[in-house]
C-alpha cells in the first residue's frame, strides 16, 4: 500500500512537473537561437507571459468557421494532456497510466489532435491554411511509421511493450546495445523535429505563410484558443523530448529527486540541441522532408533488425 | 478383270470426267450415267439370292438418280438461265491432278485397311471413297449452286457405292427412306435455286456471303 502511495505521488508529481515546465522548452530553444545569432533574445519565460496574456484576451473568429474551429484547441490540448499521462514524465517513476501497448495510444492521441487541427484549418476556408494542412498530414503520415518502428525497436530490445516498461527496463541495462539505441535516438530526434514543426522540417519563425506548415494552420486563432494551442504544442514537445531523453540518457541513481533533476536537465539540454540545430541548419525543401522521414524509418528498421538478429 | 472391277473403273472415269468438264450440261449427263450404274450395283453386289425387293429398289434408284435428278437439274438450268460454264475456284487441270492424287490415296488406303468381311472387290471401296471425295471436292471448288447440287448427288452416289462394296444389305424400308430423303433434298435445293435466281439474279453462292456481311 505504501509502495502504491509512493507510486501515485511520484507519478502525479512527474505529470504536474511536465504540465508546469513544458512552456519552458520553447523559451530555451529561442534563447539558444538568440545566443547563436548574437542577440539577447526573449526571456526564458516568454511563453508563460504569452499564455497568460492570451488567456485574458477576447477572441476573433472568422465568419466562415463552425464549431470544429472552436473545438480544435480544446481537443488538441486534452489529447496532449492525455498523452502526458502515458509517459513517465520525469523518467524516475512510471507513468500515471501504463499498460501493454500504450505506445500505440501515444501516437494515436496525437492523431486525434492532428485530425482536429487540420479540420480547423480547412474550416477557415483559407487557401494558405489548407496548404499547411495538406503538408501536415503527409509528414505526419510518414512520421508515424518511423515513430512506431523506433518504439518497436525499443520494445524488442527490452522485451516490454509499454512505455514505462521500456524506460524502466532500459535503465536496468543502460547502453546494453549502443548501436541500436543510437539509431533509435536519431530516428526519434527526426520525428521530434518533424512532429513539432522545427527546422529542418518547418520553420516556426518565418513570416511567409507559403513556407510554413504548422504555424499557418493556426493563423486564425486568437485569444484563449491560441493559448490552448501554444500550450498544447509545448506539451507535445515535452512528450517527445522526454522519450528522446529516456532513450539517450538512461542514467538513474535510484533517488527520485536526483533522477528527476537529471531528467529535466536532459530535456532542457535537448531543447538546447534543438536550438543549435535550428541555428545551424536551413529549412529543407518541401520535397526533401518525406525522404528524411523515410530515411528515419529505415534507421529504426535497421535498429529493429539488429535487435532481432542479436538473438 | 471381273465385272465389279470394270464397273468400278468406269465409275472412277465418270468422276474424273466430272472434274475435268467445263460444261454444266455435260456434267448433268455424266451424273445421270453414274446414277444409273450405281442403281445396278445392288443387283451384282449381294450375298444372298435376289428378291423382288432388290429389283424394285434398283428400278427406284435408276428412276430417281438416272432420270428424275437430271431432269430436275436440267429444268432448273434452263429456267434460271445462267451461263452454262462451271466457274471453278480451282482450275480443271488442277482439279484433275488433285483427283488423281486422291485416287492414289484411296487405293493406298484400301490396301491398308483390314476389312472384317468379304467385300465386292478391292477396287470397290477405293472407288467409293474416291467418289465421295469427288462429290465433296465439286461442292467446295465450284462456284455455282447448281454444281453444288451435282456434287451432293455424286457424294450420295459414293456413299451408296460404299454400301454396295461392303455387300451391306439394308432393310427395304430404310433404303426407301434414304432414297426419299435424298430425293427431297435435291428437290428442295432445286426449288431454292429458283428463289435464289429471282432474289440475286445469279446462282453464285460465293457472292451470297457478301450480301450477308453487308447486312
Amino acid at each position, binding site marked *: 500500500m505504501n509502495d502504491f502511495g509512493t507510486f501515485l505521488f511520484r507519478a502525479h508529481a512527474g505529470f504536474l512537473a511536465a504540465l508546469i515546465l513544458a512552456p519552458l522548452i520553447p523559451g530555451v530553444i529561442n534563447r539558444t537561437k538568440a545566443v547563436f545569432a548574437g542577440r539577447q533574445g526573449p526571456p526564458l519565460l516568454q511563453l508563460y507571459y504569452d499564455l497568460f496574456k492570451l488567456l485574458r484576451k477576447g477572441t476573433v473568429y472568422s465568419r466562415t468557421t463552425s464549431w470544429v474551429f472552436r473545438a480544435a484547441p480544446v481537443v488538441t490540448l486534452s489529447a496532449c494532456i492525455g498523452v502526458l499521462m502515458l509517459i513517465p514524465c520525469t523518467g524516475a517513476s512510471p507513468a500515471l497510466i501504463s499498460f501493454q*501497448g500504450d505506445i500505440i495510444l501515444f501516437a494515436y492521441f496525437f492523431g*486525434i489532435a492532428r485530425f482536429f487541427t487540420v479540420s480547423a484549418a480547412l474550416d477557415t476556408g483559407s487557401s494558405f491554411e489548407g496548404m499547411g494542412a495538406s503538408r501536415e498530414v503527409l509528414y505526419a503520415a510518414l512520421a508515424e511509421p518511423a515513430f512506431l518502428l523506433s518504439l518497436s525497436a525499443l520494445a524488442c530490445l527490452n522485451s516490454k511493450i509499454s512505455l514505462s516498461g521500456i524506460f524502466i527496463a532500459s535503465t536496468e541495462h543502460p547502453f546494453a546495445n549502443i548501436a541500436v539505441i543510437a539509431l533509435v535516438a536519431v530516428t526519434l530526434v527526426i520525428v521530434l523535429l518533424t512532429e513539432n514543426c522545427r527546422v529542418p522540417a518547418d520553420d516556426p519563425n518565418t513570416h511567409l505563410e507559403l513556407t510554413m506548415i504548422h504555424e499557418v494552420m493556426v493563423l486564425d486563432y486568437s485569444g484563449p484558443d491560441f493559448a490552448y494551442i501554444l500550450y498544447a504544442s509545448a506539451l507535445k514537445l515535452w512528450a517527445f523530448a522526454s522519450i528522446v531523453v529516456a532513450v539517450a540518457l538512461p542514467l538513474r541513481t535510484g533517488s527520485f529527486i536526483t533522477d528527476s533533476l537529471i531528467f529535466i536537465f536532459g530535456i532542457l539540454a535537448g531543447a538546447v540541441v534543438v536550438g543549435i540545430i535550428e541555428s545551424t541548419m536551413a529549412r529543407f525543401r518541401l520535397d526533401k522532408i518525406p525522404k528524411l522521414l523515410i530515411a528515419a524509418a529505415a534507421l529504426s528498421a535497421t535498429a529493429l533488425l539488429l535487435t532481432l538478429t542479436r538473438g | 478383270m471381273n465385272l465389279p472391277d470394270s464397273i468400278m473403273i468406269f465409275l472412277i472415269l465418270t468422276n474424273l470426267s466430272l472434274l475435268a468438264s467445263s460444261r454444266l450440261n455435260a456434267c448433268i449427263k455424266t451424273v445421270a450415267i453414274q446414277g444409273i450404274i450405281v442403281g445396278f450395283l445392288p443387283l451384282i453386289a449381294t450375298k444372298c439370292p435376289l428378291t423382288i425387293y432388290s429389283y424394285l429398289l434398283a428400278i427406284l434408284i435408276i428412276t430417281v438418280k438416272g432420270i428424275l435428278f437430271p431432269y430436275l437439274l436440267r429444268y432448273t438450268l434452263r429456267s434460271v438461265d445462267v451461263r452454262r460454264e462451271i466457274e471453278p475456284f480451282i482450275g480443271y487441270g488442277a482439279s484433275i491432278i488433285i483427283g488423281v492424287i486422291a485416287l492414289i490415296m484411296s487405293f493406298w488406303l484400301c490396301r491398308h485397311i483390314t476389312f472384317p468381311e468379304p467385300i465386292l472387290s478391292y477396287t470397290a471401296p477405293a472407288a467409293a471413297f474416291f467418289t465421295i471425295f469427288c462429290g465433296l471436292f465439286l461442292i467446295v471448288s465450284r462456284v455455282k449452286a447448281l454444281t453444288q447440287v451435282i456434287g451432293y448427288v455424286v457424294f450420295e452416289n459414293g456413299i451408296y457405292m460404299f454400301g454396295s462394296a461392303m455387300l451391306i444389305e439394308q432393310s427395304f424400308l430404310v433404303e426407301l427412306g434414304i432414297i426419299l430423303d435424298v430425293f427431297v433434298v435435291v428437290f428442295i435445293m432445286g426449288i431454292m435455286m429458283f428463289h435464289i435466281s429471282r432474289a440475286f439474279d445469279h446462282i453464285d453462292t460465293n457472292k451470297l456471303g457478301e450480301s450477308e456481311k453487308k447486312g
Partner: protein
Amino acid sequence: MKLLIAGFALLLVCSFIPLFTGRNTKTAALSVIAGIFSLLLLSLNPCIESLFTGGTFEISYRMSIPFANFAIGMDPLSAFFLLPLLVLSGLCAIYGMAYMDGNKHVYGSGRSWFFFGMLVLGMSLATVARNGLLFIIAWELMALSSFFLVTFDHHRKEVRKAGWIYIVSAHFCTAFVFLVFVILGRNSGSLDFESFQVLKSGTAASTAVFIAALIGFGSKAGFIPLHIWLPEAHPVAPSHVSSLMSGIMIKIGLYGFLRTLTFLGDPPLWWGVTLIVIGASSGILGIMFAHAQHDIKRLLAYSSVENIGIATLGIGIGLLGITCNEPVVAILGFAGGLLHIVNHCIFKVLLFLCAGAVIHETGEGRLDRLGGLMKKMPRTGICFAIGSAAISGLPPFNGFIGEFLIFLAALFGITTMILPLSLCAIAVIITIGLIGGLATACFSKAFGMIFLGEPRSENTAVHVEDPGYAMTVPMILLSVFCLMIGLSGSSLLILLCAPVSVISGLSLEACAAGLKPASYPLTAIAMLSSLMIILGVFLYTLRRTMPRSHLETKVPTWDCGYARPNARMQYSSSSFSQPITQLFAFFLRTKSKNPDTAAAFPGKNSFSSETPDFWQEYLFRPSVILINQISAFIGKADNGRIHVYILYIIVTVLILLGFHFFK
C-alpha cells in the same frame, strides 16, 4: 433453429411484397424492414447463445438437387457476422425508405426493395449455410441482387459500365468459390460442411483451397488487385445500397475466407506471410487511391479496400501466430481482425449514409463542388466527423480498438524474437502506422471539403438542410455505436472469444487466456478516452470562464493581405491531396489537365486531375482489349462463305480419320 428458418421464410415473403405494391414505395420499404427485423428477432436467441457459450447448432433438410442440402447452422463465427449484418441492414433500410422516397424513378422503387430484401437474405443465408451448394446459391443471390441494386439508375452509361464490371468480377470470384468447395468435397463425396475432413497442411489440396479462397473470396472482399469493382460499383449505386455493399457485403467475402480456414489444417508459414503481403498492399494502396479521389463515394469505396487490408493483416498475423505456436499472438491477431471487420461495418455504413444525405440534399458528390455544409447540415456533419475519426483509427472511437488489438498482436509478435513472425510483425506495424496517417489525411480531406469552409459552387448551397429523422436517426445511432464500442473496454473480449476459438481451432479457455493480456489495456484505453472527454469538457468550461471569453469578434478569414478572397480560392480536394499523389506518383499515376498559360495572352483556362485505377488502366482494360482483338481476328474465319464452311467439315473428317488410321 427452426425459428431461424421461419425468419428466413419471413424475409423471403416480405421481399416479394414490394413487387406488388406498385407506386406505393413506402409500403414496399416497410415490408422489407419488417422482414429484416423479424429475422433479426428470430435469430437473436441462437446467435447470442452461441456467441456466449460457443455452442453450435445445426439443422439440415435434404434437397433433390444432387450434392445440395438445405443445411444451416449457427456457431460463434456465423453469429458474429450475422448479428451486425442484420442490425446494420435494418438501419440501412430505414434510411433507404426516406432516401428513395423523393426519388421519382421511372421504374418505381418497388423492384429495388425486392432486390434489397434478397440481398439481405443472400448475405444472411451465406453466413449460416452449412452446405457448399447452398452457400454458392446464397452467394450468387447476393451477387445478383446487388447487381440489380447497383444498376438501379441504369439509364446512365457509367452505371451500366460499373454494373458490367461488377457482375463479371462477381462471376469470376464465384468460379473460385466453386473450386474451394469442390476441392473440399472431393474426398467426402458430399458438400456438407460437416463432412469436410480437415485437409492436412502442405498437401496440394490444401494449397489449392487456400489460393482459390484467396482469389474467390478475396475478390468479393476487395483484395488488391481484385478490387476493381468496388470503386466502380459503389459510386453509382443508391447510397443505402452502397453502404450495405461496402459496409457489409464485402465482409461476407472475409467470412467465407475465415470459414474456409476452419477446414484447413495447421497453416504453413507462407499463408500468413501471403496474407500480410496482401493486407499491406491492399491497405496502403487502397488508402492512397482513396486519398487521390475527388468523388466522395469513390473515396469511400477505396477506403473499404484499405480497411479490408487491415482486417487481413490481423488475420495474417493470427495465422502466423498459429504457425509459430504463439497462441497469444494468434488470438490477438484474429480478435483484432474480427473486431476491425465489425468496426468497419459500422463506420463505413455511417459514412456512406452521411455521404448519401449530402448527395440527397445537394445533388452533388464531387468534393470540389461541395463545402461549408456543417452550418446547413450540422447533424450530418457531426456524424460524418465521428465516422471520419473512427475510420482513421483515432481514439476514443471504435476504429482504434480494432487496430490496437492488431498492433498488440504485432508487438507481442516482435518480442517473441521468432524471426519470421517478428519480421512480419514489423511489416504490420509499419503498414498500420502508415495507413493510420494516410487515413487521417484522407478523411480530414473528405470531412473538410464537404462540411467545412465555404461552399465551392453556388448551387450546392441553397435550400440545403439536414434530412428527415428516418435518415438522421440511423446515422446518429451508428455514431453512438462507434463511440460505445470505443469506450466499452475489455467487455468486448467476451464477445470475441468464441469466434476466435472457431477460427484458430483453440479451445474456449485457451482463447480466454490468450485475450487476457488485452484486457487491462482495453480498460485503460476506455478509461483514458473517457478521461480525455471529461478533460475536454473541463477545458471548454475553463475557456468559457476566461475573463473576456464573451468578447467575440466576427471577421472574414485572415486573407494574408490579399484583398478579395472568394470561395473558389479555397484549397480544393485535388490540391489537398497533391503532395501525396506526387510522392506516390509511381502507383497513383494521377492524370492532370494542366492549363496552358504559356501563351502571351492566356485565355480562360482550367485545371483538372483524376486518378484512375492503376490495375484497371494497366491490367484489366488491356486484357479485355486483347481478348477483343483476338476474337475479332479469329472471327474472320466465319466469313459467310459456304464453300469454306463445307471445307471445315471435310478437313475435320479427314483429320479425325487420319488420326484414327495412323494411331
